């Protein structure tokens, strides 16, 4: 699975760095090093006021925040990897 996290200006200011770090932490915790490839990208034209834009195997998710990360990871990433 390829996860791309937007590191463009807008997402950067909304904390893409923290999201990258959370991803690294979760991947390690769940032992998914061989299943998930993390990558950066610049702007997917979905900038909004809330959070960071992320693609999971090409599907775009917007507004990911530190507070909502746990839910996002379990819902959109972990469930896909496990299935």
């Amino acid at each position, binding site marked *: 699975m390829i996860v*791309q996290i937007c*590191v*463009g*200006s*807008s997402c950067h*200011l909304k904390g893409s*760095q923290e999201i990258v770090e959370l991803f690294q932490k979760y991947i390690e915790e769940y032992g998914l090093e061989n299943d998930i490839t993390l990558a950066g*990208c*610049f702007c997917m034209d979905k900038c909004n006021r809330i959070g960071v834009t992320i693609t999971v195997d090409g599907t775009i998710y917007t507004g990911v925040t530190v507070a909502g990360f746990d839910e996002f990871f379990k819902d959109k990433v972990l469930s896909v990897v496990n299935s």
Partner: protein
Amino acid sequence: MRKFDTKVQHLKYKVLREVARLAWKDELFTHLLDVPQIISPGPEPTMRCCIYKERAIVNERVKIAMGGDKENKNIIEVIKIACDECPVGGYEVTNACRGCLAHRCEDVCKFGAITFDANHVAHIDKSKCKECGACSRVCPYTAIVSRKRPCQVACKIKAISMDEQKAAKIDDEKCIACGACVYQCPFGAIMDKSYIVNVVDMLKKAQNKDYKMYAVVAPSISSQFTYAKLGQVITGLKELGFHTVIEAALGADMVAEAESQELAEKGFLTSSCCPAFVTYVKTAFPELAQYISHNPSPMTAISMYIKSVDPKAKVVFIGPCTAKKAEILREDVKPYVDSALTFEELQALFDSRDIDITTLGEDVLDNASYFGRIFARSGGVSDAVKQALKEQNIDFDVKPCPCDGIEACKIALLKKSKNLLDANFIEGMACVGGCIGGAGCLTHGEKNKAEVDKYGREAYEKTILDATRVLKN
């Protein structure tokens, strides 16, 4: 507010704007010959001896705006018919000489080059004169002046001479494309070739959505477009058709991190971010070329990253620099950077689409740290390398030698070649002040350095490693 320092820049801009306008409309080849008439409507000439010469010169500017002479690999080109063939006599006695009795000029001349006629008026024997200027300094009437061409004075590496017709001539082997002569020639007879048509073409084709356009903007932009807000410039770039805008300063953070490691490993290094400096070392001090950092320039570093995450990306660098236009032709840079524009050309591009950036909303531009951003001014690279060593806990005592302008670079390189340099890191910047003194800037001013520092302090990331961390997934 004035958008340019000089009328020559304004003229150059108008030509670029008209050429870009035609390119957007696909009318370049049908309406090309109308441009001189648009710029010089006549019937009276406003700049030259007659309207026909004026238009002939504009024609040459149009050629350079469209990429210039393809046979000539130098990015800097002389418009021969625009060259006013300024005097090149060196020190001369003017008619302000009063024929005084003191003859200080004669006393101070160590070479016996000064003689007097029956009226006590001084004359300089050119076969003896060494151009030291001592006579000029002591004359109480300031009657002795140095007549030198502004282009030759601007070219500190002495790549400009005159040809048989007395027009300026560039030694293309020596020229480092810094653009100093372009900015200094009062007649606008030397110009940097433009890729503006090529950029318009890429922007137009990007509408088919086969690829995305990325603008990589140099941090010196903080001292430019001062009549608007930086955020409005970013919105303007997106209106032009750029998908997104990224700071070259993030590339500078990447370079500072890697270059500090390289410095600690090798013990001596010169910076590699200024392409004019790199060319100068390679041509004038080939034996020192081994010390040039192997790191790419910030522009190339960030472009490599962009292409690694989006292989179909088209990257356009926008900055203050004419030498960057030469850098992107290098084999090791070509695959990553598709084109390069100056701030002058960006202003022309905005106006070719009638985009008034002062009316636009403000977008954000934030990728880099304070240290990446201050690369734009002299001393910034040294500060960043020092900081990167500290952040990475590398135990290396860096002694930087920040060289402000190509003359200072020359002195440091000469010392190094004789093993007399008390430093282990040469920061080479061809333009005085650093990139903010670049020939492609709209305006050059005293406050520019303060503007860069202010912009640096506004960065969301405060350290180099914080800025580069997002790239290391």
